[in-house]
């Protein structure tokens, strides 16, 4: 898509050097946007009423129905997306490499917990909140109900932004990675302002958690990992003693894992009818969705709609590499969704939201996970039913809602 408001390096350079750069706009869509269809052979401009409502973003793979008007443009009557990818049935092959290892002989297997934006190191309060989280997950706090619930959580997936950005303390996480920030570069040279504390603190929590459940940690925008996608996992050794637990895994973002439900029927299982299906989980730290949301007006399209759309486009990050930075790939595109995941978790979102997306007999549970530091929300997904609960953890209150 051709958008006049896209950030433009030439403009940055051409701008008068003495004026401070205006803040990057929150949204980049405008009336003058044009939609192009492109392949290796070239481009053609798409026109048609339908496009206005289609909420397209750059890089979407699309089939268009219509005709070349002879005016060098293509009148679109209908659009067609790939639709949701096939879903793994029981008989499907499993990617054994990505199979979770069984951490211990635990029988708790009912829920998987998602969390994002621990933001350790931003404020002392978040630290306390994280402490509550650890206690909750390890069953060390809450009433009996809560403990019972917690005991069924078999693993925790941390979707990015575990550490506060390396900015001045208390500064908001930088939502846009477009801004070329010169300040941190200078700060990088300044060794004194660095505090190893957040990493140690995170490591300590991970260590505690790993003793009782499997933990996956995905790097997010503010985490110490390259900022271009797919984000490489930081060396697990960074997390000190926690790294010794094989159940605790550091992953790259985005990350797909196939989760074979552990064999035993847990006591009080929420969905007793289940016959141990495999569950694929697709997890990202939210950068693609954050970027895409700049392309569309807020009002009619929610982030949830966009997340759903990515499933239908079969592509997690279409806007890469145009406005979302990614590693170059020649042969394969790591962002293509070849299998519809059962659970599609997106971290670092402004609000919690969830929807069960269905397409024929394919379905997927989409979960937008907000920042824990700001909302105190921990999201639980039932592995059998794909039902969602949220647990609100503040420093002293734990509330459940289904």
């Amino acid at each position, binding site marked *: 898509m051709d958008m006049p408001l896209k950030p433009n390096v030439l403009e940055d*350079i051409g701008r008068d050097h003495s004026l401070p750069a205006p803040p990057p706009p929150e949204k980049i869509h405008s009336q003058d946007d044009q939609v192009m269809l492109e392949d*290796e052979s070239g481009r*053609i401009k798409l026109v048609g009423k339908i496009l206005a409502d289609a909420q397209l973003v*750059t890089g979407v793979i699309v089939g268009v129905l219509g005709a070349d008007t002879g005016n*060098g443009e293509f009148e679109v009557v209908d659009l067609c997306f790939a639709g949701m990818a096939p879903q793994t049935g029981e008989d499907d092959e499993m990617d054994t490499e990505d199979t979770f290892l069984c951490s211990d002989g635990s029988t708790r297997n009912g829920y998987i917990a998602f969390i994002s934006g621990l933001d350790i190191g931003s404020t002392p309060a978040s630290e306390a909140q994280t402490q509550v989280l650890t206690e909750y997950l390890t069953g060390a706090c809450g009433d009996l109900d809560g403990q019972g619930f917690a005991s069924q959580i078999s693993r925790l997936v941390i979707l990015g932004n575990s550490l506060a950005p390396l900015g001045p303390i208390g500064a908001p996480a930088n939502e846009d990675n477009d801004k070329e920030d010169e300040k941190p570069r200078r700060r990088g040279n300044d060794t004194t302002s660095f505090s190893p504390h957040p990493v140690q603190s995170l490591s300590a929590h991970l260590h505690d958690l790993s003793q009782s459940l499997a933990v996956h940690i995905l790097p997010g925008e503010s985490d110490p990992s390259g900022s271009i996608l797919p984000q490489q996992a930081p060396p697990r050794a960074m997390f000190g003693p926690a790294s010794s637990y094989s159940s605790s895994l550091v992953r790259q973002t985005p990350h797909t894992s196939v989760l074979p439900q552990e064999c035993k029927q847990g006591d009080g299982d929420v969905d007793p009818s289940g016959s141990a299906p495999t569950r694929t989980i697709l997890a990202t730290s939210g950068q693609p969705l954050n970027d895409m949301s700049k392309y569309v007006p807020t009002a009619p399209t929610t982030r949830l709609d966009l997340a759903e759309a990515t499933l239908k486009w079969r592509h997690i990050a279409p806007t890469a590499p145009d406005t979302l*930075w990614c590693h170059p790939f020649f042969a394969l595109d790591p962002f293509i969704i070849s299998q519809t995941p059962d659970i599609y978790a997106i971290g670092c979102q402004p609000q919690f939201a969830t929807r069960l997306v269905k397409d024929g007999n394919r379905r997927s549970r989409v979960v937008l996970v907000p920042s824990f530091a700001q909302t105190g929300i921990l999201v639980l997904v039932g592995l059998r039913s794909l039902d969602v609960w949220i647990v609100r953890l503040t420093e002293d209150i734990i509330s459940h809602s289904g």
Partner: protein
Amino acid sequence: MPSKTQSTATNGITSLATPGPATKKQKLLPTPSGSQSQGSQSSFAEVLAKIQLESQESAESEGGADAWERPHLQPIVESRDSIVFQQVDIEDSYDSSHAGARIRICGVTQGGHSVLASVTDFMPYFFVPAPRGFRNEDIDPFVHELNSSVGGVISVELVQKRSLWGYLGDEPAMFMRVTVTQPRNVPRVRGVFENGEVNFRGLFSGPVTTFESNIPYTLRFMIDTKVVGMNWIEIPAGKYTLLKGREKKSSCQIELLVRWDQFISHAPEGEWAKVAPLRILSFDIECAGRKGVFPEASVDPVIQIANMVTRQGESRPFIRNVFTLNTCSSIVGSQVISFTSEAKMLQRWRDFVEQVDPDLIIGYNIANFDIPYLIDRAKALKADQFPYLGRLKNTRSQVKDAHFSSKAFGQRDSKETTLEGRLQLDVLQYMQREHKLRSYTLNSVCAQFLGEQKEDVHHSVITELQNGTPESRRRLAVYCLKDAYLPQRLMDKLMCFINYTEMARVTGVPFNYLLSRGQSIKVLSQLFRKALDEGYVIPTFKSEGSDEQYEGATVIEPKKGYYDVPIATLDFSSLYPSIMMAHNLCYTTLLDKSTIERLNLQKDVDYTQTPNNDWFVKPSRRKGLLPTVLEDLISARKRAKADLKKETDPFKRAVLDGRQLALKISANSVYGFTGATIGKLPCLPISSSVTAYGRQMIEKTRAEVEAEYSVANGHSHNAEVIYGDTDSVMVRFGPTDLEKVMAIGSEAAEFVTKKFVKPIKLEFEKVYYPYLLINKKRYAGLYWTKSEKYDKMDSKGIETVRRDNCRLVQTVIETCLHKMLIDRDVKGAEDYTKQIISDLLQNKVDMSQLVITKALAKTDYTGKQAHVELAERMKQRDAGSAPALGDRVAYVIVKGIKGAAAYEKSEDPIYVLENNLPVDTKYYLENQLSKPLMRIFEPILGEKAASLLSGEHTRTIQIATPTVGGLMKFAVKTVTCLGCKTPLRANNSVSTGAICDNCRPRINELYHKQVTMASQTQVKFARLWTQCQRCQGSLHQDVLCTSKDCPIFYMRKKAQKDVEDAVSTLERFDNEVW
């Protein structure tokens, strides 16, 4: 196209295209060139598509394939139809079939039909003073006498005329008008007179000065028939003979014969100010060169020719096509015509040109490259039918070497190809002539005027693309089409064609003269026209260059400094023309001592003595010709400006604006004409008197202003003239209030005007506040015409358009001026400068800021030059990628051996990046930055200015460690700890790790640091790369552009290397023990 797109659902779809309406929309939309925003860099393929969208054409005529022919012509009846057309080209023609010379006029009617009028019976002539005692009876024997000695004389006629030169009293003198058969006979017959070889009854003694004998035949014709460049001509019914069938010699639709005095020439006023729907062809060719060699027509094929044809007055080209050698995938909105044989392609292109029949051919560097290359290439391919690109069927187009030398524009060698009946406008030549730019590449010109970067594909890549697939050739074709469209857009944006048309009309010369001739022919044309009206004849001087100099304009010594109070500027409007008018300075009013005595003239009654001690008669005795010319020009300009205010139609406005501009330039060039010692009619008494008056007036203005606006006269401050130059004075009136100064300014202008002779007028135009006066002709200030908001930042003489400056200089100076003048923050400017110097010394300045580019124009430069030396060295390293003749060489200055000259230290920026060569920051500081910086800071800081260049901020220096070079061959590379730079050895670290054991506790911190750095470089590179992808208009293909003028090219290259380095350093952590 749908079949080529990623469509999954287009099968079985019937066309939904609605057939385009028969009437084509031809509205004047603002062209895309109107957008200055750099943000709207849509891909060119899209632009093509858009053009087609707006022209509403049907699918069959993609790229205007059905619109090549001119509109069909209804049969013409000689006795009924008059023929009215705008002439574009007037040439003399010789034909053996008829004895005399003819004038050939090509033009276009309002209906878009092409016309060729052959004008008959116009005979060239000139004047000779009739010797005393020559009588009417002597004419016949005299003609006979001339014919027997030189021949070619038709008649001699006695006429009463006055010589233009000097005032000798009012009685006209007797002249002989000698009419000859052929233009080429003029110099021969003239020679007889000039050499004193006429021996007619002893009446002639010695050499005789001839009059009006050096004027081109076509111009003579135009003057006598009152035809001016690009005007409308009407040939009434019955006055012409149509030529048909085999009589026709041209490809024009209407061809006719007319006698020279049988047509009407319309002055370009009112209705006749319009412009016919001329067809403008803009084209560009691509050649497949070999590696390292600039394409040569004898070897390297022409592979593509892209064409855009636009009707004058329309904003979109109605024909867009590209001729390609070998197959090429289709391009939306353009017709692709593929060939397997190059000769056939060239031939077809020629046919295309004939069919489309453009009146004006434009392009970028077509005069020196594209057209000669095509013609030479056709010769090499033995395509004999090719070089008939003009309108005459049997005239080959030939390339000639032309040498252009003008005082105003310098010397230039160029090639010239006459295409009969078609105008040429090489936009490059136009740019070189009308705009002073840092670089004249199409890319930088577009960046300057259209606000766009252009993809620049190196010619070695072109060959690769050509040898690839239809897709890669398509890519090349899109590039080529873009290059063909840009000249058209530049022309529209800058109004080149309209402005030149108006210039031709105002000065009365053919359009072609404007680019191929200098200034003086324009003045001469006006002078001849006026002289004809008033009965003067103009003497022919042998042009001999004299070195005689005269004193130029005066400059009041500037009181340098930074003025933080409003400075009013008082300008004399059109100073030199007004002086000439006010004091009646002209050839015809020039007196000498003997005439004064002979006619007994009284000083200040009959004549004036100028400050230069020349004498001119007063208008009461005789009104000068030049003042009349100037008055006409100035009143015409006033009219044009008044009409401009009333006019609402954008096209007519453009014409009027072009006209007033042309009139202004013309009025100002009259003075220069009289002072051009190498010109046709130099008259130093006029030009030096003009400047002498100018000097006097500036001084007088100063005296008047300073005397009137003083404390003694009851004003709050003593006014002070701080600077004055040619036609303006800068006055510090004292008050700090802007409005008050403006009021005083206009009052003072009126006050002083009263002291001068009409029409000299002093005007108050603007206030500079603040004002930085650096030196003579060097100043900068914030420009105010109204007190609410400043208009712009104005700077003279400090723009760093010099090409041997790097971009850094420009950026620094501009930013400093901005800080000083707009932000009023001198301290900020100082700090900024220090920061930049510090960055420079620490190697933090972006490479693209340091690159200097120069064209490699020839091989044998006399002196050693940096870019030539570098090209030579690059050739030794890799002949393939080395710059070839004609390429632009970009270089940076790197550190070299002590005492090495700058030219030895030049290096290829890419090589510098790859090998981490240290840049010679000292060179940049001392040879590039220091002088301009000192210039702007000295008036402010005085002695202290030098402190900018030395001191605390210059202490930290970082020098890159090169990976090549003499010493480096002996160096052993060791990896150092990222924490403390200790060399890593087996005993203090893990193998291929990142840090030493001592720093291990800080591993987290160091890792963080490295990650942050790596991700920043990654983001930076990603941004630059996607920008380049957008510019080229495809996200699927690799970026090919190697435009050395693009500000992000080196940045992109550097970022690429930075990413690689940062990531490889980061990887060392993988081996680390945590």
